[in-house]
């Protein structure tokens, strides 16, 4: 049975925290824990969610949870899973919630190691496209052109010069049992991917887009809209990797306007028409690759 707003667990597992209004990351964590339930054991590295959720004595997880070292989400998940299994506990899910920097940059070695070992863990990367906790610095998942505090937009350089790291396919290249992309804009899709991941033994990975109004420069009421639009305009895609095959979950007949998506966000305000053309070309190349190589259904 697929998960819908109607049958979603009404219990809360992540509340009373200090996340900013409109935070996409806290929504991803809160929603995923509703799927995983009280037997989830959450591992969160240094980053937004640990910074807002673990301030002694105000501890905000109703399930077991622990902060890991920044680079150590996956390796700690390995230890947690092994330790609980050795205690004879079987009814639990070790789940990591790490940001884009914690995953694609500093944590990628440990993530690769855990997938390689085949550990029975679920790793969720909530991607707000920069180091937001420290005040909006460029990460490996910051998209081309985005202004951050370490990729300022001036007359010489227009924000971030590098494209977003292809994390989903890097993870898939490990021949992982299950990997998926998602966005908090399409929450049922994300929740059902979490549900599916829960049933699969071995390493599982979900990369979910989670806008940060503060870092993106959008109103706090626009989180969901921006998280939908990024997929609608083709700068993100909803896909899965399973049994050695990529599947595109959603193949829009027509994309919405990339320019509208970008122009709505302060981090892209400086982009020139040429910059936007580059972004659109790169989107089209990506989709040409997806459509010719991946299984498409809908």
């Amino acid at each position, binding site marked *: 049975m697929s998960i819908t707003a109607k049958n979603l667990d009404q219990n809360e597992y992540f509340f009373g925290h200090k996340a900013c209004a409109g935070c996409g990351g806290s929504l991803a964590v809160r929603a995923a824990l509703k799927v995983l339930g*009280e*037997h989830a*054991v959450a*591992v969160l590295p240094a980053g937004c969610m*640990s*910074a807002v*959720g*673990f*301030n*002694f*004595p105000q*501890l*905000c*997880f*109703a*399930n*077991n*949870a*622990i*902060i*890991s*070292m920044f*680079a*150590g989400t*996956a*390796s*700690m*998940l*390995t*230890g*947690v*899973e*092994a*330790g*609980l*299994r*050795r*205690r004879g*506990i079987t009814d*639990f899910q070790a789940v990591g919630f790490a940001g884009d920097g914690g995953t694609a940059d500093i944590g990628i*070695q*440990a993530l*690769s*190691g855990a997938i*390689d*070992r085949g550990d029975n863990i679920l790793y969720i990367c909530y991607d707000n496209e920069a180091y937001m906790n420290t005040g909006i610095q460029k990460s490996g998942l910051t998209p081309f052109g985005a202004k951050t505090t370490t990729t300022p937009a001036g007359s010489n350089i227009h924000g971030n010069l590098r494209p977003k790291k292809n994390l989903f396919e890097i993870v898939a290249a490990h021949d992982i049992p299950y990997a998926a992309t998602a966005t908090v804009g399409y929450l049922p899709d994300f929740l059902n991917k979490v549900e599916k991941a829960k049933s699969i033994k071995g390493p599982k990975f979900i990369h979910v887009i989670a806008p940060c109004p503060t870092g993106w420069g959008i109103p706090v009421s626009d989180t969901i809209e921006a998280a939908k639009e990024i997929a609608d305009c083709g700068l993100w895609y909803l896909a899965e990797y399973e049994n050695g095959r990529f599947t595109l979950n959603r193949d829009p007949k027509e994309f919405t306007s990339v320019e509208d998506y970008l122009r709505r966000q302060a981090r892209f305000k400086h982009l020139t028409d040429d910059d936007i053309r580059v972004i659109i070309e790169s989107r089209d190349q990506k989709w040409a690759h997806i459509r010719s190589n991946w299984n498409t259904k809908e």
Partner: protein
Amino acid sequence: MSKQYLSGDEAFAAGIRLARPEVVSAYPITPQTIVVERLSDMVEDGSLDAEFIHVESEHSALSCAIGASAAGVRTFTATSSQGLLYMAEGLVYASGGRFPIVMMNANRSTALPWNIYGDQRDSLALLDTGWIQAYAENAQEALDLALLSYYIAEHKTVSTPFMVNLDGFILTHTYEEVDVPEQSQADAFLPKYETENCFDFDKPKNMAFSAGPDTNYIFKFKEHAAMRRAIPVIQEAEAKFAEVFGRQYTGLIDTYKTEDADYILITLGTIAGLSREIADKLRAEGKKVGVLRIRYLRPFPTDEIAQAVRNAKAVAVLEKDISFGAAGTVFTNVTSALQTAGLNVPAYNFIGGLGGRNISHADIEEIFAKTEQGTQRVNFIGIEVEA
């Protein structure tokens, strides 16, 4: 109990097998490698029922051990030198979280220049990370510390991680006859690990949290107090150990002919053996000399050292370490202990053995001679430096 001919690494691995850790996570580095190879063999042949986790780095080795400890099981890791430094973030994490992980560190020089041989700069550079630090002298003590370390680290009043240091190659790779206890003896000595410092599905826990300026230092104070509480627990553990295994250890320090000694050489690790040999030789020549081996650098034997050297005319501190721009770290700690006790005993520091350079009989005789004559505060064996 069976007599076996084992290297220090092998003896330590044999001790770890007897301690029955549930999760072993380690990454290979010379001269620690043999420990993890032997533990892998034991898991393969079924003589050790543990999860052996092939982590992709030392950072992950400790991160994984912390995760397993938070899950409530006994854990082990081992490393050396650069690997220990790479783990450094995890050291403070494990101690701050009060996870009683046991680690073996093969004392090895730190780059640059690259060097795989033994000195103690790796562990001494990390003396302030909140780990109990013990230094073994021989393979038997190494094996015994594998068992003692869990008893002490996991004691409810301590709950602090424990680093057992073995001099690289000189101890890790040297074969000696070792008494290997029976599993039943080990089980009689070492209780099963039981803790409340772990996840609980009836009362879920949020662990390894943040604590702001108001409360942070209270946690740090508790960490310090727990480490000091390890001192009586070390005694308790050694008394029980003697009961079960018939070998009595001597707590934080091990003294040799210090009672009436005018000149005492203070050192740690394997070089203590040669130092005692030279002390005997000098005693035969009528010189009243003794040797004090520091077994535990943390918790530091402040009172024990002061008590042992209170009647000495001068002390020497021989160590394979240098804190650049100051003196050897062991020396600094020892002189602080003397000062704390109000003792006005001249103390001289002798730095040697860096990068595995040999410390000879003649070197140690010279240390005793210089200590008697008086010399500069910090001396480098084999290098003449201006005062």
